[in-house]
């Protein structure tokens, strides 16, 4: 497979230009952009003073006393590059951004349209100069890697370089191996006496694969001028947000829901026109007093108009039940995740059983609220209440802690059938009738003989007991630290309980019924 012809346009020192514009500094001054404590990019005047990439800040400042040091800001680089990209796309629509400052274009289309590769390079330079980057360079070669090296090999006088088709390998041969972008690979090769890409490309491919793995094999192909990467032009994302403003602001949930119907329909129709459906939705509700409530809702299938209105209604109910505390002035719907409609089409004979289940449970949710219908997974932890992870129907309930870890200290035997989430108070009494206390060494002050369960005030005799077993979790974290002693008791009724003792208080954690 031969590499396809690619045009790379390179704006030299882009992080310097963007950083200088952000900080309001003249880009001709000596400037260095610092990332992880070392110089990541430097301006031409700084280079003239001896500053190089990879120097520590102190070293760079000692070489150039007037050096302006700026922190790396990838977001600003991308933001400043956006107008340049728009200008370029106005002339050549299929542009892929490698990183801010470097773009790659498939050469075939522009070369045919503009009447040849030199003319296409001229056009790119003209478009970039029009966007305020007159010093941009262009390289054309087989594959994006060779084209970028061609662009970097130009001088301010000759701002474009063409490598003839099939000439990439011989063009790349004298360049150093460090350009592969894999520092470890380059270090090993240099130690082996292989200093240029040509020497590297001359190695047998199977031996490179055996020694350096798939990544090394890919680098070897690139060095040989057989860059397998294709240009994937970016597709400018559409703004799919739908906004509805209420003038005067509304303060009743049913009014808002009614007024929202058209907007929700338009929002979903716009997606449907592009054969897309919405599977995650962000709802922003702005109130008259300047407040903003934002929440993301997920859907196990895809949103319908009624689903969208239900989510807004639930979000409003969180603000205040029927009459809202503050009148709502704006509602904004934005898709959080979208998917192709083909993945969500119903079958010819209607949906399967899951569709019906989802509809019925959604009706229960609209009756009781989003959080009222739950799905459950087992999570990690030592106390039984920690091991229960609940998520509203339709959302993904991923346990934060892995249940399959050993969790030393968790109880063996049965899982209790009733896990009491509200930690009701109980009393555990010794034969003399005094409350049993567990000391710092985990020893009870006396054998548990009596027990008062949470629902009744009647004292029951304890017929069997085991424990107490300590759990001393996350003692290094003052917020999450917990020191609990657990005790299993069986009372004379035959019921078994799991009790916990923490800071002088006994509570029931679970019941085996």
């Amino acid at each position, binding site marked *: 497979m031969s590499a396809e012809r690619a045009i790379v346009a390179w704006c030299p020192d882009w992080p310097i230009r963007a950083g200088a514009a952000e900080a309001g500094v003249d880009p001709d001054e000596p400037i260095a952009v610092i990332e992880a404590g070392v110089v990541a990019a430097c301006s031409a005047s700084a280079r003239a003073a001896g500053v190089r990439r990879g120097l520590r800040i102190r070293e760079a400042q000692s070489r150039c006393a007037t050096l302006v040091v700026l922190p790396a800001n990838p977001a600003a680089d991308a933001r400043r590059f956006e107008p340049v990209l728009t200008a370029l796309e106005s002339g050549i629509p299929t542009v892929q951004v490698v990183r801010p400052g470097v773009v790659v274009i498939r050469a075939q289309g522009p070369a045919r349209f503009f009447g040849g590769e030199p003319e296409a390079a001229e056009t790119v330079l003209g478009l970039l100069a029009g966007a305020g980057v007159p010093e941009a360079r262009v390289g054309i070669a087989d594959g994006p890697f060779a084209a970028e090296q061609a662009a970097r090999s130009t001088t301010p006088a000759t701002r474009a370089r063409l490598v003839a088709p099939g000439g990439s390998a011989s063009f790349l041969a004298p360049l150093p191996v460090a350009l592969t972008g894999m520092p470890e690979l380059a270090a090993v090769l240099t130690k082996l006496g292989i200093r240029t890409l040509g020497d590297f490309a001359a190695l047998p491919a199977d031996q490179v694969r055996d020694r350096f793995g798939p990544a090394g094999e890919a680098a070897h192909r690139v060095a040989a001028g057989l860059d397998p990467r294709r240009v994937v032009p970016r597709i400018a994302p559409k703004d799919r947000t739908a906004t509805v403003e209420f003038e005067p602001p509304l303060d009743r949930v049913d009014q808002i829901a009614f007024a929202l119907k058209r907007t929700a329909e338009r929002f979903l129709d716009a997606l449907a026109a592009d054969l897309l459906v919405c599977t995650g939705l962000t709802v922003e509700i702005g109130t008259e007093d300047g407040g903003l409530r934002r929440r993301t809702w997920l859907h196990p299938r895809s949103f319908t108009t009624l689903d969208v209105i239900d989510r807004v209604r639930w979000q409003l109910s969180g603000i205040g039940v029927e009459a809202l505390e503050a009148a709502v002035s704006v509602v904004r719907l934005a898709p959080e995740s979208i998917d192709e409609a083909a993945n969500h089409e119903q079958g010819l004979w209607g949906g399967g*059983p899951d569709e019906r289940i989802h509809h019925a449970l959604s009706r229960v949710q609209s009756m009781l609220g989003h959080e009222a219908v739950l799905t*459950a997974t087992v999570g990690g932890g030592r106390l039984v209440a920690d091991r229960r992870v609940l998520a509203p129907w339709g959302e993904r309930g991923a346990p934060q802690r892995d249940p399959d870890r050993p969790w030393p200290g968790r109880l063996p035997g049965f899982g209790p059938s009733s896990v009491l989430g509200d930690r009701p108070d109980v009393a555990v009494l010794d034969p003399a009738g005094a409350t049993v206390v567990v000391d710092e060494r985990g020893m009870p002050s006396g054998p548990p003989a009596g027990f008062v369960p949470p629902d009744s005030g009647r004292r029951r005799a304890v017929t069997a007991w085991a424990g107490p077993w300590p759990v001393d979790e996350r003692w290094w974290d003052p917020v999450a630290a917990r020191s609990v002693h657990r005790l299993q008791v069986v009372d004379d009724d035959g019921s078994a309980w799991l009790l916990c003792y923490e800071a002088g208080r006994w509570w029931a954690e679970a019941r085996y019924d």
Partner: protein
Amino acid sequence: MPSSALQLAPDERARTVEQLQARISAMQATGLGVRTLPTRPELAPLLPGGALKAGAAYAVPDSLTLAMLLMAGPSAAGGWCAVVGVPDFGIEAAAGFGVDLDRLVLVPQPGEHWLAVAAQVADVLPIVLLRPPARATAGDTARLASRLRQRGSTLLVLGPWAQAEATLEVRTTAWTGIGTGSGYLAGRDVTVTVTARDIRSEHPVRIRDDRWRIEQAAARLEAV
């Protein structure tokens, strides 16, 4: 009759048990086309007809464990289960007894809408476990029962239920593995009293924690 049955020789007693079981099955033979749900084989002797019936209601007033065991069979066979009004449902125990959590839906706090929620989920899910927050009126029970019959869903009620196919009560419990200050809860022996259409029978069931196996001991029958 119970006292005389107990005084018989062991083989005689076994034959009496068989006769009584045959009589119960005959009395409980319902119409044609009664669909049953896959049920754990250890629990088959507890249930009239040997399995959970689609469209019927069963009362399990005092044991969530027994309700989980009843749910486990249909759930493992691919059925969805709903748990309505049980905020303290132990997920890990249910998973251990064989309930598939991927097909389990919880409505912990249905409040005053519990009957509507139960009817709504019974429309689509084959097993519904319900703890009524208040005593259901006869009219409510009858309406829900007709809904269940129509949809073929099975209701397990954690509480008394007027039109129950069978009421399963856990009467005595002995715990094993736990001493006074030693061991841990490793197993339990329960006697399940089954009341189905005025026939009462008792079944000792032993539950052990090794790989969540339950064993069925020899059943003892008693006609009331």
